[in-house]
C-alpha cells in the first residue's frame, strides 16, 4: 500500500485537538451581551446616544487598522476587540458629547492605551476607562453635563440635570432622586450606557452563562459596595443601581488583560474596586468613583497577580 511520510504528513506538537473557542468568538459574545444596554441607551436618551456609540466603534476600528498599517503589524481588527472597546467607550460618555471628542477618546483608547503598549492583552489599564478619564480631565464640562432621559425631558424645561449620585453628592433633596424602578430600568441621568441596570444585568448573566467571564469579580465588587453602603448608613440598593457600577462590575472590571488571573487575586481586586468606589462616592469631590477605582485596581493587577500565585499541586496544603 502507498506510504505516507515526511512530505505529506503534518508533524506538530500535542495536543492535536483544540477547543473551538477563539478570541473573535469571545469578543462577539461580549458584543452580544452589550446589545440590551445599547438598545436601552437609544430608548432612554434617543438616537443621538446610538450615533455616539457608533461613532466610537467606527473610530476605534479605524484607529486600530491605521495604527497596525502604519507600524506594519499584523491586522487584528477581525478579532473584534476594537469594536468592544468602542462600545464600552461610547457607553461611558454623556449622550450630548460632541462627536469629535468621542473620536479623541477612541484615539486615546486604541492608540495610546492599547496599541502603544503592545496590542491586545498587553495594556496595563482598561482602554475605555482610561479614555473616559482623559476626556473628563480635558473636557470637564461636556463630560459632566448629563442630558436627561427623554421622558423627563418632555415633562420639564430642563435639558440636562444631575445624575442620581450627583444629587446625593450635592446633599440634594432625597425626594428629587429617581425611583428605584426608574433606576433599574435606566430612566435617569448618566452616561448613555450605564443607566439601565436590568439591561446590563441581562448582558452580564449572558457572559457568565457563556463562560466568558466568571461571576467572581462582579459578585464581589457589587457585594462590597452593598455592604459598605449598609455600614455607612446609606441605601445599599441605591448605591448598587447608581452610577456606572453595573457596567463597571460586569464589563469593565472583568477585562481580561487588566484583571488578575487567579480566583484569589480576583477577589482581592474586586474588593479593592468596591472599597475605592465607595470611598470616592462617600468622601470624594467626584460624585462617581467606578472608573477611577477600576483604573487604580488595574494598575495594581500585576502586583496582585504576583502575590496571589495559587498553591501548586503538591506545593503545600491541599484543599
Amino acid at each position, binding site marked *: 500500500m502507498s*506510504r505516507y511520510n515526511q512530505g505529506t504528513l503534518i508533524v*506538530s506538537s500535542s495536543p492535536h485537538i483544540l477547543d473551538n*473557542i*477563539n478570541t473573535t468568538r469571545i469578543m462577539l459574545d461580549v458584543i452580544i451581551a452589550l446589545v440590551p444596554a445599547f438598545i436601552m441607551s437609544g430608548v432612554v436618551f434617543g438616537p443621538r446616544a446610538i450615533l455616539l456609540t457608533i461613532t466610537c466603534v467606527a473610530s476605534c476600528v479605524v484607529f486600530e487598522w491605521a495604527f497596525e498599517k502604519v507600524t506594519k503589524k499584523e491586522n487584528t481588527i477581525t478579532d473584534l476587540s476594537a469594536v468592544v472597546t468602542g462600545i464600552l467607550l461610547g457607553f461611558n460618555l454623556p449622550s450630548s458629547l460632541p462627536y469629535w471628542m468621542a473620536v479623541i477618546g477612541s484615539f486615546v483608547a486604541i492608540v495610546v492605551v492599547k496599541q502603544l503598549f503592545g496590542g491586545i492583552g498587553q495594556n496595563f489599564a482598561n482602554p475605555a476607562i482610561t479614555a473616559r478619564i482623559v476626556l473628563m480631565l480635558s473636557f470637564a464640562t461636556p463630560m459632566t453635563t448629563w442630558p436627561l432621559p427623554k421622558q423627563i425631558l418632555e415633562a420639564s424645561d430642563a435639558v440636562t440635570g444631575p445624575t442620581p449620585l450627583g444629587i446625593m453628592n450635592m446633599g440634594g433633596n432625597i425626594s428629587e432622586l429617581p425611583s428605584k424602578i426608574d433606576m433599574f430600568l435606566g430612566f435617569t441621568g448618566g452616561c448613555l450606557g450605564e443607566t439601565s441596570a436590568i439591561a446590563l444585568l441581562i448582558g452580564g448573566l449572558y457572559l457568565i452563562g457563556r463562560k466568558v467571564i466568571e461571576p467572581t469579580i462582579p459578585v464581589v465588587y457589587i457585594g462590597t459596595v452593598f455592604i459598605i453602603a449598609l455600614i455607612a448608613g446609606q441605601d445599599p440598593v441605591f448605591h448598587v443601581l447608581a452610577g456606572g457600577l453595573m457596567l463597571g462590575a460586569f464589563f469593565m472590571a472583568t477585562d481580561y488583560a487588566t484583571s488578575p488571573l*487567579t480566583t484569589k487575586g480576583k477577589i482581592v481586586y474586586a474588593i479593592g474596586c468596591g472599597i475605592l468606589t465607595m470611598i470616592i462616592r462617600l468622601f470624594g469631590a467626584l460624585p462617581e468613583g467606578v472608573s477611577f477605582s477600576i483604573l487604580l485596581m488595574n494598575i495594581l493587577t500585576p502586583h496582585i497577580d504576583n502575590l496571589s500565585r495559587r*498553591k*501548586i499541586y503538591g506545593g503545600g496544603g491541599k484543599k
Partner: protein
Amino acid sequence: MSIFSKHLPAIHVEHHKYTAECPTEKMPLPDKLYISMLQHIGAPCEPTVAVGDHVKVGQVIGDSEAFVSAPIHTGASGKVLSIEKTMSSVGIWDLIVTIAVDKKQEVLEDLSPPEVTDKESFLKAVRASGVVGLGGAAFPTHVKFNPKNPEEVDTLIINGAECEPYITSDYRTMLEDSELLVNGIKTTMKHLNLKKTIIAIEANKEPAIKKLSDMVKDEPGIEVFTLKSVYPQGAERVVIYETTGRVVPPGKLPADAGVLVSNVSTIVALQRYIETGMPLVSKKITVDGNAIKNPKNVEVLIGTPINELIGFCGGYRRVPKKIIMGGPMMGRAIYDDSIAIIKNNNAILAFDEEWATVPKETACINCGRCVKACPMMLMPTTIFKAYDKKDVEALKKLNVTLCMECGSCSYVCPAKKQLSFMNRLAKQLVAEGGKK
C-alpha cells in the same frame, strides 16, 4: 477550580469513543516484524539474536544488563533478516531487528509459566515478562514494583481511566480480559504485600465498571472507583489524588505517597505471562480517526508496521495529513506510517487535512482559561511569558517542571497558543540552566 473543591481542575473534552463497542479483532500475521530495541524508558536493549538466526514465538530477541530496562520478545517465528540502526521517531538512534515471518508460529519449547512463590521470584517474573508501563510512560514495571520504601506502600491503583478521546483499547481490555485483570491484581497484591487495590474507571465506561464491580465484590481489599468523565483523570498524579486524596510532591514518585499505579493492560499482560509463560508480544490498539476506513480495535503483534495495521482496518478513507501514536491530547504525531508498533502504543489515529491543520496563534488575551484548566495548578500564560524572556529563575518559581504536558492548557486557549509545547521547551531550558 473553586478553592473549596475536592477535585483537581479538569476540562471537558469530547470523548469520540466510536470504537467502544468494537470487540478486539486479531490481525493476521504480517510478512515482517520490525522490532525496536528502544521500547521503554531507561537503557535500550541490545539484540540477543544475530542475522540469519531462526526465532520462535516468545523468544527474547533483545535485552540489557541495566536495571532500568526490560527484555523484548518476538511474537512470530521466522528468520532474523537484518539488524539496522535507524533514526527513531523521537530523534534518537535505535536498532531495529527485522524478522521475516514464516507464519508457522512455532512456539519456544521451554515456554512455561514461571515459578512465582515470593516477592523476589515475582519481580523476576515481572522483568522476564517484558512488561513496561503500557498506559504510555513505558517505564519498566519491575522497577516500579520495587520501590525503595516497600513498607510504606500500601495501595495499588489500577488505572482504567482512559481519559484520552478516541482510545478504547483499555476499555476493551477491561471487558475482554477481566479475569486476567482481577487475577493479576490478586497476584500483585499478594507478592507486594499490598492491602488495598482501587480500580479507577471513568464514569463513561459503565459496562466495565459494572462487570468489574461484580467480579470483585467478594474480593477483600479490591474496589472499583468511578472517576468523573473529565480530562485528564488518567494522569498519574491526578488519578492518585482523585482516588486516595494523596499528593505526590514535586520531584517524588507515587511510591513516596504510598501508592503504585498500573495501567489495566500492564496488569493483564503480566498475568498472562504468569499464567501461560507468554511474554508481552502483542497489544490491543484502537485504530480510529476520520481518515481511517473501518475504525476498530485490533490485537496486533509488536513490530507490525503501522501502515499494515491501517490496511487491516480497510486502509485510508481520505488522504491522511496527520497520524498520531496515542491519543489526540498527548500522543505524538509521526512522520512516517511505515514505522512499527511498540509496547506502549495503545492507539493509532489518522486524520485528514481539515482536522490536521494547526490553527494560527494569536496574541494572548490574558483570559486565564489556561490557569483555570491546569490540573497541577500551574500558570501556563505566566510560564510562557517567562520562557519568552528566557528567565530561568522565574520558570523555576513557576514550577514548570511539574507540568506533565497533558495539553489541557493548549486545548482551552482561545489564542491557540501551544502552551504545553512551550512548557516542554521551558522544562528543557530549566534543566540546562540547572547544569550551568
